[in-house]
């Protein structure tokens, strides 16, 4: 696409991704044809990425309020009250399309973007999580993508001095041509010092702060709103290039500015850069905004207004300062060696007016861009193959001959295996808050100046969602909450990053609507509000859509930091207790995929009341100091959970002897099935009876299943009338090698 002024033709409109109807609406709003710059501005603001045109009506179903909510959706990030005059500010965003085209820079700028969303609010970022999805590692392209993405995240996050403390990495062929890179960031701010993206106060100066504007990332938002094909690699110039050093300076400068009384509003220039920040700030305040591009710092001469308005150069902020305080703002920016300039002022006429060299080059009502974009209630129907997906005949499924070998095979599967290769490349300790580092159910960070800690986790099982989008959405919430509970935290808020295929396909819309409803119902049940989020549609390449993957980032609060819990066994002689009931849930499991090469069946059953009782019980036991370790059963089921309890202590592995009696279900379901609402505890031997009694009183099934200790993991299953006895028996060294070195092995293939 040429960037010089061009006459508006039908082709040009189509290139900008606007439909005929949408273009008609543009003409109606303006009362005339748009010029080239205006067409570009409308096209990015009305792109799916910026306007949420296909999702907005459905997102309304999510519960967004609650006693702790300080800031719900609609700002740069959400915020929940954590007491002591502080709030946790958090959000999750995707950078999928850029990361496929250019993994290193795509992932790096994903980190940069979410960090800005957090410190724009006046919060100092204290932790990052990354949720990643790739194709299988036997293909060199997927290894290249994984290495590039991890290196990109590592370079940006480490340089910023914000620890990357966890996340998840899942491998499935469905993501081979459409990897997912979702980044979550958490910051801490004073509750009464939150900043918003508002251009209030007619006459107030508008300032540009940060990197110079270049020709990178033009039309990134439009790219992110389109499907992929072979030609997508040619879109590399639409991927921005990150400069974490400048971002670090911008972070410190912004936080220093926010200590003063100089700013009225602030917003980062993310997708659609100068365009979105200016019209959204104006629109929120019900004002207009006049920009003079002449003063915008730029990397190269002869940039057109079109390019300046649409550039997605990174590390830039737009600020509205109090009148007469321009020089004070500029002085602090200069201290940090940042480019900064007054580029406009707030007006009262509601118009975004862009000037260049004294000439008006665009004039559009700000609200029409930010809020009055098209909204669609797109058609939705279940895919024709849904019944086939859900049909799974267990009788035709042979049970393994050697259960030990099956456990080792599962531990070696990259989705289950240790992610040490990944998180060792992330600085996960800087800022000295990381109480529980990567490798447990959730990361735990102490909050300096208080006795509290926060726990954070990111979760989603896309396979459950494709098999049953509603149940998959509910399970994603339940699992995230369960991970926090296992860390001793009470869930207090959630952010969602909804990765789906092409919304113009009715089956994708069907998946989206049901997943959102599942998330909404579970959030309602657990009283966890959704305070921020992001939708990433068009994860489709050559007509193949990804599994619906609504990744959730959840935040929990631990009132007494020293009561934070970890997942690994602590001491030989401790009793192992299983909370929750095990059903014959084989559908949709990792076991089914790895061993039987099928992704089929109904996902595990979930009852929200049962799950809630489990949470209440576990939290009570942890708070009473009765628990030594707590770990939830998820991918790979009970056997994998037990193995992880044995192996995941970074200092010292511990074996266990487990005996399962009275079970009549299939042995593979008992060992590797992924029944929900189950937690493996270890407790001191002399408190086991007490723990079992409390669980019983609270209506939670509980059984002592074994003892910690030794150099092996042994699981004996007693014979029943329906099924024979069987045994898993492996020494810790073998388990550790399979689980601990799997990723290195997979990546060292030639």
């Amino acid at each position, binding site marked *: 696409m040429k960037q010089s002024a061009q006459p508006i033709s039908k082709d040009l409109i189509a290139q900008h991704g606007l439909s005929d109807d949408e273009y008609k609406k543009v003409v109606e709003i303006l009362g005339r044809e748009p010029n080239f710059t205006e067409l570009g501005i409308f096209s990015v603001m009305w792109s799916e990425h910026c306007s949420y045109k296909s999702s907005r009506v459905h997102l309304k179903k999510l519960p967004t309020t609650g006693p702790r909510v300080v800031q719900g959706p609609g700002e740069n990030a959400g915020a929940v009250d954590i007491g002591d005059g502080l709030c946790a500010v958090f959000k999750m965003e995707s950078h999928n399309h850029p990361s496929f085209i250019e993994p290193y820079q795509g992932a790096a700028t994903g980190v940069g973007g979410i960090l800005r969303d957090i410190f724009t609010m006046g919060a100092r970022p204290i932790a990052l999580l990354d949720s990643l999805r790739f194709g299988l590692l036997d293909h060199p392209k997927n290894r290249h993508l994984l290495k590039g993405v991890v290196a990109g995240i590592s370079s940006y996050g480490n340089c910023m001095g914000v620890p990357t403390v966890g996340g998840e990495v899942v491998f499935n062929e469905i993501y081979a041509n459409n990897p997912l890179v979702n980044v979550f960031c958490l910051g801490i701010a004073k509750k009464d010092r939150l900043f918003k993206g508002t251009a209030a106060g007619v006459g107030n100066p508008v300032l540009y702060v940060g990197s110079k504007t270049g020709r990178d990332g033009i039309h990134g938002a439009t790219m992110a709103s389109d499907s992929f094909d072979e030609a997508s690699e040619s879109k590399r110039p639409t991927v921005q290039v990150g400069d974490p*050093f400048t971002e670090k300076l911008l972070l410190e400068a912004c936080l220093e500015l926010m200590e003063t009384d100089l700013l009225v509003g602030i917003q980062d220039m993310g997708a659609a850069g100068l365009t979105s920040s200016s019209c959204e700030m104006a629109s929120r305040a019900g004002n207009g905004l006049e920009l003079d591009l002449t003063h915008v710092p730029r990397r190269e001469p002869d940039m057109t207004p079109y390019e300046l308005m649409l550039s997605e150069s990174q590390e830039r902020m737009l600020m509205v300062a109090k009148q007469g305080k321009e020089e004070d703002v500029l002085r602090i920016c200069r201290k940090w060696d940042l480019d900064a300039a007054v580029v406009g002022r707030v007006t009262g006429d509601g118009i975004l007016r862009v000037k260049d060299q004294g000439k008006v080059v665009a004039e559009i009502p700000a609200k029409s861009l930010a809020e009055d974009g098209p909204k669609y209630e797109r058609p939705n129907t279940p895919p024709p193959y849904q019944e086939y997906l859900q049909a799974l005949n267990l009788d035709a499924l042979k049970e393994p001959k050697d259960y030990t070998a099956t456990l080792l095979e599962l531990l070696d599967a990259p989705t289950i295996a240790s992610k040490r290769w990944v998180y060792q490349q992330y600085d996960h300790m800087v800022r000295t808050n990381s109480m529980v580092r990567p490798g447990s159910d959730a990361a735990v960070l102490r909050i300096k100046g208080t006795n509290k800690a926060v726990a954070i986790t990111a979760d989603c099982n896309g396979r459950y969602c494709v098999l049953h989008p509603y149940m998959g959405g509910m399970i994603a919430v339940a699992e995230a909450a369960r991970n926090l509970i296992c860390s001793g935290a009470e869930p207090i808020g959630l952010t969602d990053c909804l990765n789906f295929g092409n919304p113009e396909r009715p089956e994708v819309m069907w998946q989206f609507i049901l997943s959102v409803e599942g998330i909404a119902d579970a959030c309602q049940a657990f009283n966890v509000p959704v305070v921020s989020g992001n939708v990433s549609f068009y994860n489709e390449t050559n007509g193949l859509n990804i599994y619906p993957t609504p990744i959730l980032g959840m935040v929990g609060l631990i009132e007494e930091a020293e009561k934070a819990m970890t997942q690994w066994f602590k001491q030989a002689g401790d009793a192992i207790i299983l909370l929750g009931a095990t059903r014959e849930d084989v559908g949709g499991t990792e076991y089914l995929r790895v061993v039987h090469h099928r992704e089929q069946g109904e996902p595990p059953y979930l009852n929200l009341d049962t799950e809630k009782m489990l949470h209440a019980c576990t939290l009570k036991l942890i708070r009473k100091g009765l628990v030594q370790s707590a770990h939830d059963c998820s991918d790979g089921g009970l056997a994998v959970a037990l193995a992880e309890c044995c192996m995941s202590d970074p200092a010292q592995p511990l074996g266990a002897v487990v005996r399962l009696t009275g079970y009549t279900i299939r042995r593979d379901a008992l060992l590797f099935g992924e029944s929900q609402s189950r937690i493996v505890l270890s407790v001191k031997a002399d408190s086991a009876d007490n723990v079992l009694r409390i669980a019983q009183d609270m209506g939670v099934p509980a059984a002592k299943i074994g003892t910690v200790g030794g150099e092996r993991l042994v699981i004996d299953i007693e014979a029943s009338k329906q099924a024979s006895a069987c045994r898993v028996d492996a020494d810790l060294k073998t388990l550790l090698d399979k689980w601990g070195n799997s990723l290195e092995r997979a990546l060292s293939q030639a």
Partner: protein
Amino acid sequence: MNIGVIVFPGSNCDHDCIHVISSVLGQKATPVWHKETSLTGLDAIILPGGFSYGDYLRTGAIARFSPVMNAVKTFASEGGMVLGICNGFQILLEAGLLPGAMLRNKSLSFICKYVHVKVENAATPFTGLCESGQVLKIPIAHADGNYYTDPVTLAALQANAQIVFHYCTPEGKVTPEANPNGSLDNIAGIRNAEGNVLGLMPHPERCAEDILGNHDGQVIFLSMLDALKKAKLKAVVA
């Protein structure tokens, strides 16, 4: 005591050092902006970790030109204690306050994990409260910690007990397997010939509190404070 912590653009462990000195050890910590030219009133100086100037050229290569570095050199030449941690160590190497240079880690990747180091010289002001041969568990977090120097310098470092920390096994054995980054002779930290400047790659400030599960790093800061206290007492007596 009043410990100065230099803040270069891109420093990111400055807050962590200040936290340990002030909140954990109850001493005064003063952030010193890199454009400062004087260090008067400060008892010791810490160059913290981070990515000064983004480390875009070579780690520490640009920071050595910051105005404050002249003052740091003067401070060191007058016998003042200077501690460089991670990027701070890299800057001390680039500034010539310590001999040698850093190469990219052998794995070519950034590595963040706990390692063990053996205190080889407990007679420095930074290790005075350690036992000789004591093993400390301290995390590293760097991409360029592969220490290198020429054979003559290495021999001099060894002869003068300037190698203060070696990477080792939990039991204190200095082995190739215990070397996380390919560092020459398993070197994790060195001092200058005079003994008042120390650089180390591991981060003692990240393990100085029980709530983080480990306080092995505290001894470095406590040793510094102890040395300063003794020096002041000596000055009073003299």
